[in-house]
């Protein structure tokens, strides 16, 4: 029991680091309704750019910003493949993910880079306090953006593309913008995670999309998604809860760290199935009740006659 409590602060810290990635996934998955698998590659791209620049003597701040821009570029390419190249959405993401695997290796020059002894953002900062600030600022900025004319067009693109086209917005552009923004956040998360962990590794992004989905879905299941603000906060919250669940699962003696991926998959599957099952059960229940009421009314009316 003691060990579990000890692991919670670390889990919250990790949850906030990965929350930026979850927000990125929220943009594509929920707002654009575009399942973007680029994430697995662009997360590593973020870590790779940051680690490479830092070991070459760049300021960690500059390296982090560059990592974010690198992610934006990767996302833009996925968007271009999908809109201009007319490639299926899932496939464009997968193609970009595979391409990034090689690109990330080129960036790093080797499969992993250690940041031990290098100056990172976190050298002089409390990770927890800093991440609370960063996540809050990004949630606020994202919410403000989604209320602008451009942000509304982005949201309408995922909601009813035909409608927003008839009002003169170019959906190709909004899709590219959304995917780019999303992967910028994902790469930013990757850059921060690499600095916190003390290394960047070419496989650090594997399974990231599923973790992002898990965070978004867990958050929605617990907090709901009534408004954009609520939904973005839910993604952050979901990311933290996910890390706590993982920390607790790892305390179980018969589970290994290597079982993490299947635990994640199970969490996502359960979180996806429960709301759908709940909804259909509710609908059936309501329909049955209403039908019975109507039938009763008919019998009552018949009785009076």
């Amino acid at each position, binding site marked *: 029991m003691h060990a579990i409590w000890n692991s919670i602060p670390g889990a919250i810290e990790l949850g906030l680091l990965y929350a930026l990635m979850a927000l990125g996934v929220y943009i594509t998955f929920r707002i654009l309704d575009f399942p973007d698998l680029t994430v697995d590659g662009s997360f590593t791209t973020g870590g790779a750019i940051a680690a490479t620049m830092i070991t070459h003597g760049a300021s960690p701040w500059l390296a982090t910003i560059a990592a974010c821009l690198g992610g934006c570029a990767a996302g833009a390419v996925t968007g271009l493949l999908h809109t201009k190249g007319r490639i299926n959405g899932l496939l464009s993401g997968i193609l970009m993910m595979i391409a990034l695997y090689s690109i990330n290796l080129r960036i790093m020059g080797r499969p992993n880079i250690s940041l031990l002894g290098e100056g990172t953002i976190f050298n002089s900062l409390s990770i927890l306090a800093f991440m609370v600030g960063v996540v809050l600022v990004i949630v606020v900025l994202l919410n403000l953006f989604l209320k*602008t*004319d451009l942000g509304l067009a982005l*949201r*309408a693109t995922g909601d*009813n593309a035909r409608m927003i086209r008839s009002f003169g*917005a170019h959906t190709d552009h909004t899709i590219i913008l959304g995917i780019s923004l999303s992967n910028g956040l994902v790469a930013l998360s990757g850059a921060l995670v690499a600095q916190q962990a003390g290394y960047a590794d070419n496989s650090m992004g594997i399974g990231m999309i599923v973790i992002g989905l898990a965070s978004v879905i867990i958050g929605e299941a617990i907090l709901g998604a009534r408004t954009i603000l609520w939904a973005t906060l839910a993604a952050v919250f979901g990311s933290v809860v996910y890390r706590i669940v993982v920390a607790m699962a790892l305390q179980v003696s018969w589970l290994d760290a290597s079982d993490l991926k299947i635990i994640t998959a199970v969490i996502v599957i359960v979180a996806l199935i429960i709301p759908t099952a709940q909804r259909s059960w509710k609908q059936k229940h309501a329909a049955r009740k209403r039908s019975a009421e109507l039938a009763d009314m008919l019998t009552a009316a018949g009785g009076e006659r």
Partner: protein
Amino acid sequence: MLELSKVSKLFFPGTPDEKAALIGINLTLKPGDFVTVIGSNGAGKSTLMNIISGVVTPDSGDVRIGGNVVSELPEYKRGRWIGRVFQDPMAGTAPHLTIEENLAIAYVRGKKRGLSFGITRSKRAFFQEQLKKLGIGLDTRLRAKVGQLSGGERQALSLLMATFTEPQILLLDEHTAALDPARAELITRLTESIVREMKLTTLMVTHNMEQAIRLGNRLIMMDKGRIILDIDEERKKGLTVEQLLREFENISGHKMADDRVVFG
């Protein structure tokens, strides 16, 4: 205002399924014209709407709006001139956005969408005033998600969104066909008053013969990709549904084949 000259469109050219959706269509709408369009299934009415709005580009011929040739412009670039209401009440609005957010999207029709706020206090007041005109209580529900509205309410909102920025051309594509009679009547009445008040140049496809005669100042009838009859305001006044159907049979040589047609 709107001018189509010798517009033709083939679907699946050169295959056994080849279909001539439009053949040499000539049509000119003067500013303020309100034209109703009727015709049997597959007459090309929907293709006509799609050619004008830019969803489909013509194989030959020109489309002009306000004197400019727009035949090759994609739909999103024509959005600034054309307001459109679809048959499906779900098609014209974004369900997960609120009423005021939907209106904000329509408000910047065809303009560059930048980083200024979609909804400001003054815009909200304007939206409220516009919604009040619909007279169905939407003005008190600005922050309700559009997905929670009924089909009739959504269609009324779509109509408002399509018109309140005064587009040069309004396209109504059987926009009352999917509604129950009472709702359809409400939308028809709103359409009439909005079009008259704003003097919008309007093209309305309908399956309701009576509506086609009652509304607007001109009626055109289509069959097999052609305009086969063009009735002006004078002649339209005394017209009955029976006369219209007889006329159709005389010219086309077959009965009006349309399972959805409503005689009024």
